[in-house]
């Protein structure tokens, strides 16, 4: 019967598309359905607030210093004593990020001593003008309830404002509260609101190494 299998052998290949038809399409329907980003996705920045509404940024310009693309411009100013903007000595009264220069490496997030700047899952930032890509304090600073501000092209029908208002789009790249010795310490919240950041998997699950190598 070898002549029969020789005859049917090439026809077996045609069964492959028939099997694939049952599986359905793999395409993600983007404008309607947005893919859930990974937890550490590097998206648009935000400037956070403390739960009492004070700004976290103290205008130290460390983010601007560490930025490899030189896309951040910060100017610090002394806090007004009667009505301070931030708990520190100074506050960043100018804060600009050129999103077109930014390479989303999150080194600013690492450098920030107060975790004022974090990255979100927002990714829709297309602009028609280079000037529109410069995000200032107006766009970066969250509202008092922790809602990220709208992008400049907010009138675009593609921008889902409801998605922006949701708090679960927040992330922290490598902030100190992600390390195991900070576990349980309230330093940063996933939604920039009050609460406690749950320790990530693997941070405290009995890994025997000590924190000496963490400094290196």
């Amino acid at each position, binding site marked *: 019967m070898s002549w029969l299998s020789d005859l049917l052998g090439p026809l077996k290949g045609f069964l492959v598309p028939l099997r694939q038809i049952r599986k359905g399409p793999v395409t993600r329907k983007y404008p309607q359905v947005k893919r859930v980003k990974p937890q550490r996705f590097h998206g648009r920045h935000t400037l956070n607030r403390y739960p009492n509404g004070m700004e976290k940024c103290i205008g130290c310009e460390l983010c601007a210093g560490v930025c490899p693309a030189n896309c951040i411009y910060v100017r610090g100013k002394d806090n007004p004593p009667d009505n301070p903007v931030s708990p520190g000595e100074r506050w960043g009264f100018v804060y600009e990020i050129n999103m077109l220069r930014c390479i989303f490496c999150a080194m600013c997030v690492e450098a920030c001593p107060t975790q004022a700047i974090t990255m979100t899952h927002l990714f829709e930032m*297309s602009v028609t003008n280079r000037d529109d890509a410069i995000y200032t304090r107006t766009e970066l600073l969250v509202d008092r309830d922790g809602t990220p501000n709208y992008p400049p092209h907010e009138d675009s*029908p593609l921008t889902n404002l409801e998605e922006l208002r949701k708090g679960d789009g927040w992330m922290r790249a490598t902030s100190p509260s992600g390390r195991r010795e900070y576990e349980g310490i309230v330093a940063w919240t996933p939604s920039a609101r009050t609460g406690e950041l749950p320790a990530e998997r693997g941070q405290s699950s009995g890994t025997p190494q000590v924190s000496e190598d963490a400094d290196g």
Partner: protein
Amino acid sequence: MASQSTAPGILMTTLEKGVNWARTQSMWPASFGLACCAIEMMGTGAAHNDLARFGMEIFRASPRQADLMIVAGRVSQKMAPVLRQVYDQMVEPKWVLSMGACASTGGMFNNYALVQGVDQVVPVDMYVPGCPPGPQSLMHGILTLQQMIMDGKIQNSTGVL
């Protein structure tokens, strides 16, 4: 076509809508992948994101058949004349999408070797931030550009039809 001073009639607006619809739904990109952004651009055309849904699945190697140039990657000073020539060879109407930090502004490569933004060489219609922008970021740029075309008038780059 109706002049700018008078309001176009029903026939002309319908025609304009139809032409704009045809232009948006068959906007073939010229493949101009220069660096890592090109990988994301290819991923956008592949099955999981599928640019064919917007009539853009055919990445034309010939600029004569392309409508949209996606500049994906850093443009070196030596590449700039080539980029301009490819743009000049494209047939009107044509659009340019600058994808990623390097193509838009030079990104972190602020040095003598790279053009600090392709808008020094060609007119850019849409900038997509990211390093590199993911497929959905790129699609957001493309869809925004398509909406701009749908809302716009039929004209060439000099403003005349």
